[in-house]
């Protein structure tokens, strides 16, 4: 069994007088998918922004492979292998696919003033990175804006994995997608998991969560209803907890 990749311990976040998040303890292992569930305003976004370095938690700690980490910027989280793919701002629409793929990690050749982009290598990296997830690109140069929402998500996921993400956070990856597109993205999530990446998938679509997630953390009004393994909980339980219809919780460490 794999060891703990990411843990939070009694994580909390306060904005002025608003307690956005309180006492969140959860765990993610390598090669696992964690479904982070909750209704709007439950604190899902605040939680992932703490994990990806956008917010600094007010209480508690984040641990990667057992060591406590403190992020002051998304770039630091990225360096530790935490990549976040946001639903609508995953990619730059007017930029070509391969230019998007290597953005921030561009391969170059030449030195000094002649140091320039190596587009041939960028194209190869993009094809290889996408191919690994089974995404077959016809062309790597067309603007990302011509791809569908699901294809954009898939390429963004492939990019995160290619550039060394060990922990992949997906914010509502399927909420704007049709049935077939959602299936494709969920297949990419499964592929990432099989490659040993720990995936946190934020969603309020219980069906999508049940399709891929190995464990669940359910948030309601800034608090956790607890952590559950797939076989410990039913769909209806989850739906009830998300909507706050359950009062007794079965907290686990």
């Amino acid at each position, binding site marked *: 069994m794999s060891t703990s990749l990411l843990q939070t311990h009694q994580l909390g976040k306060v904005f002025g007088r608003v307690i956005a998040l309180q006492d969140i303890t959860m765990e993610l292992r390598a090669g696992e998918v964690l479904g982070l569930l909750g209704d709007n305003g439950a604190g899902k976004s605040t939680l992932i922004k703490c994990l*990806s370095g956008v917010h600094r938690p007010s209480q508690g700690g984040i641990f990667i492979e057992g060591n406590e980490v403190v992020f002051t910027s*998304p*770039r630091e989280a*990225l360096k530790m292998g935490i990549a*976040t793919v*946001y639903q609508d*701002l*995953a*990619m*730059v*629409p*007017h*930029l070509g696919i391969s*230019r*998007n793929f*290597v*953005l*921030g*990690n*561009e391969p*170059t050749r030449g030195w000094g003033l002649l*140091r*320039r*982009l190596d587009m041939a290598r960028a194209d190869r990296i993009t094809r290889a990175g996408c191919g690994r997830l*089974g*995404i*077959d690109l*016809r*062309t790597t140069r*067309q*603007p990302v*804006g*011509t791809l*569908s929402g699901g*294809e954009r998500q898939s390429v963004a996921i492939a*990019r995160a994995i290619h*550039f060394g993400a060990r922990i992949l956070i997906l914010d509502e990856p399927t909420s704007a997608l049709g049935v*077939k597109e959602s*299936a*494709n993205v969920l*297949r990419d999530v499964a592929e990432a998991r099989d490659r040993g990446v720990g995936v946190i998938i934020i969603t309020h679509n219980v069906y999508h969560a049940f399709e891929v997630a190995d464990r669940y953390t359910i948030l309601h009004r800034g608090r956790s209803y607890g952590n559950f393994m797939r076989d410990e909980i039913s769909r209806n339980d989850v739906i009830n907890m998300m909507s706050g219809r359950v009062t007794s919780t079965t907290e686990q460490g």
Partner: protein
Amino acid sequence: MVSRDERLRKIHPIRRLLSRPEVGALGGALVIWLSFALVAGDQGFLSLRGTATYLEVAAELGILASVVALLMIAGEFDLSVGSMIGASGMLLVVLSVHLGWNIWLAAVAVVIFAGLAGLFNGVLVVRTGLPSFIVTLATLFAFRGATIALTRLITGRTQLGGLQEASGFDSAQALFASELTLGGANWPVSILWWILITAVATWVLLKTRFGNWIFGTGGDAKSASSVGVPVRCVKVTLFIMTALAAALVGMIQAVTFSGADVLRGELREFYAIIVVVIGGTLLTGGYGSAIGAAIGALIFGMVRQGIVFAGVDADWFQVFLGVMLLIAVLVNHWIRRKALQE
């Protein structure tokens, strides 16, 4: 495996061509050249001398526009370039005429001054998070006002001449204001500067990491920074670049006229934005081209000089400019939608 290819149609070569931002401007430039060739061809528009005059007008604006294009692709405006032209020219003349500095030393001082002014603009924009349109509108007026006030305070006038007496003027003239006589027409060296700066800007934009960061910064700053692009650093660097381009134009003008006027460069900030937009750059950033801006400047030059050749009252120039801007925005909007529809 689930097939994705069924969704990717073959892109028609013409469609692919149309997805280049400068294509609309190129077509426009051809149409405008042909129109003036028909209307004013025998009044000198087609002669080499006529060509040199409109290229000179185009060059002076194009030096600025290519760099402004990069900043606009990164999603920001710099309106202060207009007053920066006046300030730089005046600083060069005050230092080398009034204070007797060697002109090259004065030029170095102007470059440092402009660099700091650009840094100030950039830091102000990224630190406050205010729209650069407002921030640089403020510095446009502040720089212009300070130039007028300080020049009058120091020299008692608002126009200064006598730069030809400054030490080092001859070599400065060679670099900034020499002319090549070819085919009976005088071709100013500013045309070379224009071509050089457009080429460098294009190379930076399309062939370097920094260029990719410019597109990322303007296209979606949040997603660019989430993959490690130093978005703020990109913006500040480009504000410095636009100020330096304005300083170059200011110095070219000062050396050409061997003097300076505090009001030089007025309206250049808007002309620059207009030709950048005509050149296919999106006002919202993330899309555009430095070559497009150069073509926009060429259109500007052809129209400005062309209506003179055609015998139309030059008062109509701004009407032409406004109408062209509107047409360009409409055409570019349409082309871009087609490009993204694939």
